[in-house]
């Protein structure tokens, strides 16, 4: 999907040049048209492998190989999961990862948000516009989200906090009916009835296809020394893959620009 996480964001209010804000899909469409204006071609396919050992580099989509003298990697990241069978089975049937996409389908319902960072608290706040009650379940005894979000959430009557607790099972056959919770300190196990479970427990970089061909760190992120370079000359990385801290559209665009300029320089030097 062109646009990745932005395409799933309902409203973008902090991208420069749009004083009234813009919807994620509209912003993506404008960027795509701009790139096409400069001759970019879009292939909506999933890269299944890469060949980076020699030039020209290759990007594989099943049997088909696309070749290039340089490669920019902007594969972003995906939501971390709890690793439960029930979570996969009930995905889209009460389990969800994007409040802005699906919150309005939970009007008047009770939703459990799992996590304690910025995205968990932001998603919990977004949900309160529709949901009747929001329970934020966090494995620690305090939020790791920024103060502004923590303050807003603490003052919100719809949000209730469950500390030191993990979700050990999501209950329900065809749709979510509840969660089984386990308190890490007391060992107490109990069930909370709910209609939805929103997972916001962090991100995993989409770098599986690059392992063994580029250096990655212990968390799976491609190692970069100057921001956008990689362990192989001519291959660059940008977007959420090399910005674990800010994860904004504007920072992703900034590193995309840096990667493009590096490609230009690299190709000019290679002649």
């Amino acid at each position, binding site marked *: 999907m062109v646009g990745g996480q932005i395409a799933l964001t309902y409203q973008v209010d902090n991208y420069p040049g749009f004083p009234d804000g813009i919807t994620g899909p509209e912003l993506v469409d404008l960027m795509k048209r701009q790139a096409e204006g400069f001759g970019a071609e879009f292939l909506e396919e999933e890269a299944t492998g890469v060949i980076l050992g020699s030039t020209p580099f290759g990007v594989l989509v099943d049997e088909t190989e696309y070749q290039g003298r340089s490669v920019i990697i902007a594969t972003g990241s995906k939501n971390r999961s709890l690793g439960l069978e029930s979570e996969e089975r009930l995905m*889209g049937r009460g389990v969800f990862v994007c409040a802005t996409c699906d919150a*309005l389908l939970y009007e008047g319902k009770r939703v459990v948000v799992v996590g304690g960072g910025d995205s968990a608290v932001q998603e919990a706040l977004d949900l309160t516009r529709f949901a009747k009650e929001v329970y934020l379940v966090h494995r620690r005894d305090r939020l790791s989200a920024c103060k502004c979000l923590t303050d807003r959430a603490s003052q919100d009557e719809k949000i209730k906090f469950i500390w030191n607790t993990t979700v050990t099972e999501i209950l329900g056959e065809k749709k979510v009916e509840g969660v089984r919770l386990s308190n890490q300190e007391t060992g107490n196990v109990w069930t909370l009835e709910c209609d939805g479970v929103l997972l916001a427990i962090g991100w995993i970089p989409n770098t599986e296809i690059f392992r063994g061909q580029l250096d990655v760190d212990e968390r799976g992120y491609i190692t970069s020394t100057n921001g956008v370079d990689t362990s192989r000359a001519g291959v660059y990385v940008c977007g959420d893959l090399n910005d674990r801290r800010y994860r904004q559209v504007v920072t992703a665009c900034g590193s995309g620009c840096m990667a493009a300029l590096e490609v230009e320089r690299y190709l000019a030097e290679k002649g």
Partner: protein
Amino acid sequence: MNPIFEQLPEHLQDAKYAKMNVLDSTENRNLAMEHGVMGTPTIKVFCEGRDIGEIVGFRALEKLVSELKDIFASREDCIAQSTPLE
């Protein structure tokens, strides 16, 4: 999902397609919720007004077509049991 969704009519011609954005209006949202939709994208298959199956989440085109074909296969039963709409 749009590009894949829009390719469906080429591959499965004997069905009618309707796209509904739950963000567009309260009516759309309520209709989705009445039919038990809890996530996007969800594809619901109806035959003679009967709900005969659903596909939740993203799929590659090939997989989507094959899953839809399986759902369409149950259509024979549906037609046998239903009164045609005039």
